[in-house]
């Protein structure tokens, strides 16, 4: 319980992340986080106006970004930020992702000290990075770790959309590559959860090279016969989708997640066409044979555990 309290204290949003059926004591302990304002942002932004108006505490209610329903924040968080009304899966931060997939007391972060540079001296990059760091408490857009999933040693990586759109620069590419290489060496199945807009243009070609670097690491991981799973959450696009996020032994998507290479708006503008509303949704991608399965958040850990068992036990 101490771990849970620390987690609640550090994440201002007070969200328990165990699936509803599980007891709170099953929560994974997390290393200290400075602030998790990205979590707050979700609930704050939509409820503060109402809170002020009715003179009720802020964050009490959260508006679903999918259907607009007003949800009791506590319930919504208990439901893993999935709307009880419409099933909309709100975005999770990287640490929340890892808490969701790992067993209690099993989390040990890797390469937490890696931080970005500004090799191109790209205008405003330094400011944007600093703001993102303060906002998320992360040094860059992903967290990688050793953990256990239903008692099995695994390696988990997650990108954080709150950090510059979860974009891939040198740090993300290096951390994911190390995650995979270490997973290969220690024969840990690797699970990567993506939520990203693609390569980070502020690091130019160095970002593009991370696509090649991560893809090559997966080739070796495959050859060693160790599983590698991708969990595609909203959104998973562009340079990341065209590298390590497409190379999983299983591609598992969350319901409604946007998955694709080129953004719909860019395609519409270039070709002067109108695309269907569900274009590039997880359901659309499954219909077109591009992903293996769609799994609701509450079933994610269990399904991954089952798949690992079916491959390995």
């Amino acid at each position, binding site marked *: 319980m101490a771990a849970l309290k620390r987690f609640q204290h550090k994440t201002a949003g007070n969200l328990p992340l165990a699936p509803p059926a599980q007891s709170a004591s099953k929560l994974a302990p997390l290393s200290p986080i400075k602030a998790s304002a990205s979590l707050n942002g979700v609930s704050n932004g939509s409820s503060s106006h109402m809170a002020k108006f009715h003179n009720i505490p802020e964050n009490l209610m959260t508006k679903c970004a999918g259907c607009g329903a007003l949800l009791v924040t506590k319930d919504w968080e208990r439901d893993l930020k999935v709307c009880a009304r419409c099933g909309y899966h709100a975005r999770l931060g990287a640490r929340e992702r890892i808490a969701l997939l790992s067993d209690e007391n099993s989390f040990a972060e890797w*390469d937490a*000290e*890696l*931080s*970005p*540079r500004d*090799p*191109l001296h*790209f*205008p405003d990059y330094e400011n944007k990075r600093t703001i993102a760091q303060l906002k998320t408490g992360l040094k*860059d857009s992903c967290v990688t770790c050793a953990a256990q999933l239903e008692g099995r040693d695994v390696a988990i990586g997650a990108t954080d959309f709150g950090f510059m759109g979860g974009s891939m*620069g*040198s*740090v993300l*590419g*290096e951390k994911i*590559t190390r995650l995979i290489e270490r997973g290969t060496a220690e024969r840990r199945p690797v699970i990567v959860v993506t939520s990203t807009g693609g*390569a980070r*243009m502020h*690091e*130019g*070609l*160095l*970002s*593009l*090279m*991370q*696509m*090649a*670097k991560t*893809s*090559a*690491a*997966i*080739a*070796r991981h495959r*050859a060693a016969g160790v599983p590698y799973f991708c969990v595609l959450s909203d959104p998973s696009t*562009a*340079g990341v*989708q*065209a*590298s*390590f*996020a*497409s*190379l999983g032994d299983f591609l598992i998507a969350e319901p409604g997640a946007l998955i*694709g*290479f*080129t953004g719909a708006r*860019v*395609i519409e503008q*270039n*070709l002067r*066409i109108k*695309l269907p509303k569900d*274009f*590039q949704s997880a359901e659309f991608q499954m219909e*077109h*044979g*591009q992903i293996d399965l769609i799994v609701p958040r509450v079933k994610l850990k269990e399904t991954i555990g089952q798949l690992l068992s079916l491959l390995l036990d």
Partner: protein
Amino acid sequence: MLSRWLPLEGPLVELEEQIDELKRLAAQERIDVSDKVARLEGRKRKVMEEVFSNLTPWDRVQMARHPKRPYTLEFVNALCSEWIEVHGDRAFGDDGAMVCGFARFRGRAVAIVGNQKGRDTKDRLARNHGMVSPEGYRKAGRVMELAARFHRPILSFIDTPGAACSPDAEERGISEAIAASQMLMSGLPVPIIVVITGEGCSGGAIATAYGDRVLMLEHAYYSVIAPESGASIIYRDSGKAAQMAENLKITAEDAQRFGIIEEIVPEPLGGAHRDMAVMSKTLGDTLTRHLDALTQLAPADLLEQRYARFRCLGEWNEPDAGH
């Protein structure tokens, strides 16, 4: 007329026209103007040296997209004999934006994959402006895998403004095709030399740019995103592409500075399109030198070095490791 040339080439095109006109009139009137022609030629050379030693990154983009820029098939014709193109991915179709085949390069049998743009409107459409579709990458993958089975080195030519941008490409898995192509190339036990001849743009380029050596022609560019697209994302104004080209560090010199390419292949003064014979000689010599070196390596060493080559790319801070 001018649309066949770039604005930056304006002064020298004007001089060239004057020289041609002078020669034509002299021939007509049977007078000797050789000293005048020589003087104009001298001036033209000076103008060219001035123009081409001061190209901005955005000028480079224009050069890489020059309507007269040689494309992959022209390089193949200039460099190789016995070229036989093969077609299709065996699953969906044949993509004209990716040409694949086998040829003999200075006596060596090689496999070639390359992005291909069209020269006229009809051809440009047929080849989708060099924007490769999933079936194009899968065709290239099929041919490269075949090459590896028969120990043929692979030459990959890059000249693409990006991968295909369409609902069809998305539905057929353009992301997976790009990812799988990089993964495949990382493990093929034959030498792979990549040459960025024109546009090396984003995921569409890196898809087939994983090799033992990556070379860049002097006026090619290599970028994570098209400058126009970058400008419309960051500045919300695609008109600021020149500024974005500057920010993104896309020239061959930049790529070499970051360790992303091994070598810049110099172009004849004024660009590859002005003297294809010189261009193909320079490129051919460079390719031979690298192939000679790479064929010395045992396959396991080749693969280890190729992995290490990409493995070390990137810049970050790390307190203890001191990277």
